């Protein structure tokens, strides 16, 4: 491995030896040479191929399923439906960072009495090869009673709308439930101050409505899940997942197994962005394997991924915001209705908490509604809920600035939250980099530049995301040559092998290259939460730090044994020199890390450090984005001319990966802004279930995205880490909307702002 120090370290990281440098990722060679093993690469002796039969209807009652013809086909070894699973209760299980009701988890994996979206799994087959499995699912006869689908969040909330779940009642935060069943699963509300007073104090009030479409994470690797139920009652699962322990703790209760009977091996992952936290294929593969006694592999094709895995919510949102002439925001009233898909659990809660989070607004009300519709159950997608809610609020703020004739960046600075500010949900901020991001954007070459030319415009927006902590584990052994294998439970999506190895290396005072990180199965490391929520470099970093500190303590003790002195007289320095008291002859005694590592075997054995941490204080993240666009007035196509992303990373452990996260977030945010949408017909048929028609941006659609890493260290982490992965997806949509308005004078009210939508809006505007 080679260290590439292509850019100087920042002022914050120059005090470190490893942190802030740019070592080549430990897993890089395997990935570029094709040696890395992904889930679909797995082939075991006797492995069967599985396929899933999916519903052609968006909403229908299952009258009957006849699997007899499929079972009779040569080469078919098992056919399963929901009825083959043990009855699932309504107990709540941990599903990563959240919880879910077990019977709804099972029903989403494979439908019971009703299908609730096109593509909903109805049956699954295991056969000796893929072609036979394909033929077999064609032989399964399902009789449906087709029902009217509910496809729009506002339609779903209307009294008298067809119900997806007759047993679902609207839950309030106080635990009460509505008398009548409803598609609105829950309602939450946050308030602060007095809205009437706030709006009365305002000189200008703007109210806008917004609609956003469901959008998919667009990870390149489709889902897969393989399982082998062994004769001794243990179950092995291999899968592409963001959280191996979550898969274990979801599958085990579905099959009524103990977690200790289930081992999950996370394979390399080709993207997730939150969409690879839920289980889809794993329980089916497990049950098929249980029935056949052979390993079974299931994979999805792209159409299945788009039809039947969890996108982010489509929404209807309404924002009313008032401000004084000097730009002081006096009041904001936010209404958020989020599509949860077929089962409750949209990210409306997080959306509501983020909606006004960058600003210290004295009078606020934020209402959020979680609403089921006949579309796939939504899943987390990079800062879940925040891109939508902050699109709405940031857009109205931009319009207020425009109406007041104020610089939108200055107006944000005037209202920006700082340490000690309290949000409507009750959180009080600690040390944050909100203002620092805005100031860095203000001073950026991009903001300072002139934008010229017809139909061109510039926009700006701010973003906020919480970041989270929670449980992570690690252990590491000191080898005789001074190298240190680091064992982790976190799936590496965005370079976390490197970022965690670097924190261990920094703490031990050795090089990143001397640490060898490995991601292992659930039987081989302590509990580790999902790779998500921008938590891994933070919480995993804590685990790596504590592991290294454990090693340091043990090495001090070992040196003391060798020198026959008290361990309290030995100190492990940050320079990786272990120093002891002078010997009998008055000579200094010291070991380098490698010298002592070389003596471990003969002085009592190897040293293993370990840690299991459960941390909060993850450090909120803020970002400021600037974008220049050009709008083609004839076609409605928007080209991104220039893009600058400013973000507080706390401390950038590996700046190249921080920049990569920022650029990736922008690319996905621009996709949501301009093109990406689930396009349904009135029957609930998704009409663009392929990557040809579901239009994600490519390298040809984007300029080089300029990045500016701000570092306001998080005091809740030994190296000041904040999460970096999620917040950059938030500002692109409102920034692009503002740039379009600046270019052609039209304020869009929907996402995506596709050529069709822009032409519709400009025609309407002309009329």
């Amino acid at each position: 491995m080679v260290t590439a120090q292509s850019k100087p370290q920042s002022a914050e990281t120059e005090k470190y030896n490893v942190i802030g440098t740019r070592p080549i990722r430990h897993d890089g060679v395997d990935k570029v040479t094709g040696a890395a093993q992904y889930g679909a690469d797995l082939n075991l002796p006797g492995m069967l191929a599985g396929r899933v039969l999916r519903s052609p209807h968006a909403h229908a009652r299952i009258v009957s399923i006849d699997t007899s013809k499929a079972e009779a086909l040569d080469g078919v070894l098992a056919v399963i439906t929901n009825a083959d699973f043990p009855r699932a209760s309504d107990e709540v299980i941990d599903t990563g960072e959240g919880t879910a009701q077990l019977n709804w988890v099972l029903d989403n994996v494979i439908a019971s009495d009703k299908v609730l979206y096109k593509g909903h799994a109805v049956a699954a087959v295991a056969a000796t090869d893929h072609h036979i499995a394909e033929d077999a699912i064609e032989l399964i006869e399902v009789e449906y009673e087709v029902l009217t689908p509910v496809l729009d969040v506002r339609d779903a909330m209307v009294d008298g709308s067809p119900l997806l779940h007759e047993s679902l009642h609207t839950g309030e935060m106080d635990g009460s439930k509505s008398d009548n069943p409803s598609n609105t699963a829950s309602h939450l509300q946050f308030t602060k101050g007095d809205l009437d007073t706030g709006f009365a104090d305002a000189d200008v009030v703007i109210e806008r409505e917004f609609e956003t479409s469901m959008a998919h994470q667009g990870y390149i690797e489709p889902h897969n899940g393989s399982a082998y139920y062994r004769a001794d009652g243990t179950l092995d699962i291999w899968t592409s997942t963001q959280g191996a322990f979550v898969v274990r703790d979801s599958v085990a209760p579905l099959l009524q197994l103990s977690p200790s009977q289930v081992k999950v091996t996370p394979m390399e992952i080709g993207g997730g962005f939150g969409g690879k936290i839920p289980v889809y294929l794993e329980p089916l593969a497990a049950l098929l394997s249980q029935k056949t006694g052979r390993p079974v592999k299931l994979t999805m094709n792209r159409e299945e991924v788009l039809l039947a895995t969890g996108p982010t919510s489509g929404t209807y949102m309404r924002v009313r915001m008032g401000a004084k002439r000097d730009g002081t925001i006096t009041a904001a009233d936010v209404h958020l209705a989020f599509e949860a898909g077929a089962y409750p659990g949209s990210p409306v809660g997080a959306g509501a908490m983020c909606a006004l989070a960058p600003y210290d607004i004295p009078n606020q009300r934020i209402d959020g509604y979680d609403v089921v519709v006949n579309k796939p159950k939504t899943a987390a997608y990079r800062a879940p809920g925040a891109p939508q809610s902050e699109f709405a609020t940031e857009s109205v703020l931009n319009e207020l600035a425009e109406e007041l004739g104020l610089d939108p960046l200055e107006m944000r600075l005037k209202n920006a939250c700082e340490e000690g500010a309290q949000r409507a949900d009750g959180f009080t901020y600690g040390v944050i980099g909100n203002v620092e991001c805005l100031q860095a954007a203000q001073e950026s070459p991009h903001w300072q530049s002139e934008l010229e030319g017809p139909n061109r415009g510039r926009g700006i927006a701010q973003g906020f995301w919480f970041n989270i902590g929670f449980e992570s584990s690690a252990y590491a052994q000191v080898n005789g040559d001074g190298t240190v294998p680091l064992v982790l439970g976190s799936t590496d999506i965005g370079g976390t092998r490197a970022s965690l190895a670097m924190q261990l290396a920094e703490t031990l005072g050795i090089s990143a290259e001397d640490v060898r990180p490995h991601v292992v199965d659930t039987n081989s490391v302590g509990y580790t939460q999902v790779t998500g929520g921008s938590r891994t470099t933070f919480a995993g970093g804590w685990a790596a730090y504590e592991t290294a500190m454990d090693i340091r303590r043990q090495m001090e003790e070992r040196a003391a044994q060798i020198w026959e002195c008290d361990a309290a007289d030995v100190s492990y320095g940050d320079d990786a020199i272990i120093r002891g008291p002078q010997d009998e002859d008055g000579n200094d005694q010291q070991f380098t890390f490698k010298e002592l590592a070389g003596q471990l075997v003969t002085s009592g054995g190897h040293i293993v450090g370990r840690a299991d941490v459960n941390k909060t204080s993850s450090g909120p993240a803020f970002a400021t984005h600037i974008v220049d666009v050009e709008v083609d007035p004839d076609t409605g196509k928007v080209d991104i001319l220039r893009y600058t992303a400013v973000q507080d990373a706390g401390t950038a452990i590996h700046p190249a990966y921080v920049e990569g996260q920022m650029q990736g977030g922008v690319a996905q945010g621009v996709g949501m802004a301009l093109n990406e949408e689930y396009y349904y017909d009135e029957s609930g048929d998704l009409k663009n279930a392929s990557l040809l028609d579901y239009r994600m941006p490519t390298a040809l659609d984007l300029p080089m995205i300029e990045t500016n890493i701000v570092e306001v260290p998080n005091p809740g982490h030994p190296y000041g880490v904040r999460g970096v992965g999620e917040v950059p997806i938030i500002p692109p949509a409102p920034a692009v909307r503002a740039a379009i308005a600046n270019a052609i004078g039209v304020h869009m009210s929907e996402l995506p702002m596709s050529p069709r939508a822009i032409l519709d809006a400009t025609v309407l505007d002309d009329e």
Partner: protein
Amino acid sequence: MVTVLIPQPLRTLTNGESVLTAEGHNIRAVIRDLAPRYPELAERLVDGSRIGRGISLAVNGDVVSTGLITKVPEDAEIAIVPQISGG
């Protein structure tokens, strides 16, 4: 003395009070202290050995990750929020 911030929808359980004070060295102890005065709130905040369904508690701005036994510093501020998940 710990401060507990009550979001609007839960004020039906606190006779309209938006800010409560309580004693306790951890979350469980704080809720036990509140229970005689606000039994419905205590019931909402606890589900067996867990924090109540669908909600999280934040102590001084940090969402608790160690459940009811999470230590609560003196003069801490506890907020009641929905569960958050990340991508």
